[in-house]
């Protein structure tokens, strides 16, 4: 009986010689996790998949508790989770700071060039109409700005408050959750918080507003591992990270959402193409 109900409890404790790979309840993250898993299996490891373990609140303690060994993460959001006050924004700052704040027993391997981070997007039409290309332009826009995103965005540092503090832009907030992009397209909101790797940015021709002041911290894909197994898996996983580019990640997401391919197949295909399977 612990005090904090948010402590996890992903029952199964896999035998030590197997690597437990986890993933967020986010299809893109699951694909990366699946890639890790298959790469490891190819390298002769036994792998136990604990995918879709909800939110960070759920799985980070599980990693700290050693129930999960390996987990695809994002430098920025992860750093923010441990140190919400952080001022770092550039990829390398974030990465190094992250290594500092990680609790004992947890470490990160090389970060991948692929990023999947919060970004604010507008429709092409809207950007034309108001000459919008950067968050800095928002302050000048005369029409009422409505920002759409997951409910929690309302409370995030880079949320409405961040926008007005950093860019002096006053925006309404509307919780659009998983349906943010659609809301943007339908004009229910005119600014949408979308992950940069979301294929719909391209498919729907959205304009991602630049972030000169670094409101968002860069968020590269990074493998979060249990220190004990870090060395064993480092070679295999670092190789994967090196191959995974921003565009590559988007492509993977396209296969999942547009072509509706399952993460197993996506991962296998990518690994073969990149010649990581032998």
């Amino acid at each position, binding site marked *: *009986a612990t005090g904090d*109900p948010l*402590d*996890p*409890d992903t*029952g199964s404790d896999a035998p030590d010689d197997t690597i437990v790979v986890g993933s967020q309840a*986010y299809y893109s993250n699951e694909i990366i996790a699946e890639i890790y898993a298959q790469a490891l299996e190819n390298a002769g490891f036994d792998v136990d998949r604990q995918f879709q373990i909800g939110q960070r609140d759920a799985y980070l303690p599980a990693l700290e508790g050693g129930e999960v060994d390996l987990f695809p993460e994002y430098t920025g959001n992860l750093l923010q989770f441990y140190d919400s006050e952080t001022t770092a924004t550039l990829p390398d700052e974030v990465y190094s700071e992250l290594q500092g704040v990680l609790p004992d027993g947890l470490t990160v391997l090389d970060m991948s060039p692929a990023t999947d981070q919060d970004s604010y997007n507008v429709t092409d039409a809207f950007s034309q109409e108001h000459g919008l290309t950067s968050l800095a332009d928002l302050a000048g826009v005369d029409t009422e700005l409505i920002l759409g995103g997951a409910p929690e965005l309302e409370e995030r540092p880079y949320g409405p408050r961040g926008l007005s503090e950093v860019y002096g832009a006053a925006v309404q907030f509307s919780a659009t959750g998983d349906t943010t992009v659609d809301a943007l397209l339908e004009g229910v909101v005119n600014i949408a918080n979308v992950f940069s790797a979301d294929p719909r940015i391209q498919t729907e021709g959205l304009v991602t507003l630049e972030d000169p002041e670094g409101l968002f911290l860069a968020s590269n894909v990074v493998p979060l591992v249990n220190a004990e197994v870090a060395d064993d898996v480092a070679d295999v996983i670092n190789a994967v990270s090196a191959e995974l580019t921003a565009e590559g990640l988007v492509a993977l997401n396209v296969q999942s959402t547009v072509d*509706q391919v*399952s993460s197993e197949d996506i991962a296998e295909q990518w690994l073969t193409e990149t010649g990581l399977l032998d």
Partner: protein
Amino acid sequence: MNWVLDNLDLIGELTLEHIRLSITPIVLGLVIALPLGWLAYRFALTKGVVLTFAGVLYTIPSLALFILLPPMLGISFLSELNVTIALTLYAVAIMARSVADALASVDENVRQSATAIGFSTWRRFWTVELPLAGPVILAGLRVTAVSTVSLVTVGILIGVHSLGYLFTNGLQRRIVEEVAAGVLMTVLIALLFDVLLMLLGRVVMPWTRGSSVPRPQREPVGA
């Protein structure tokens, strides 16, 4: 459709998981409800307590209960245990009432004549009252089964896997078939349980064949 065909193994896997998650609460619910129901049937005081408790419990929305239990029991919010306990509570809420009604539904004449021809109280309960209460208890159990099966899906909101996974994942990926498959399978499992229990009833209560079995005491619960 093609999504379904491509993901049959995933669906199958989740279906089994779903069934596993459903069974514990249903069984526990029945076992715990038997004594409670008997109390509710036997004494006016306990009747008030049990039925009120059941009624209140029954009114609590599932998501709210998932949140309410952990701090009270000191268990993990995100655990399967949380879901199992919550659903068991709901099951007990339904079954306690059913068992009470069931025992009350036993024909007083039969009870009297059993006593008159020399059944001891204890023996009468097990060999006469309980069997005769069977049909009504079964009806309640069928309701419980259906409601539990659909409630399990809500667990996905706190990361407990079931067919509910297809709901959230399907929404993220905009795959209608995926969500539809989840809904359909859930309904199918519910109906499967319902039919199995009905058949079970036929087997263990042959005398009810033909004559109409009493209907559920209350609405099955959607979740």
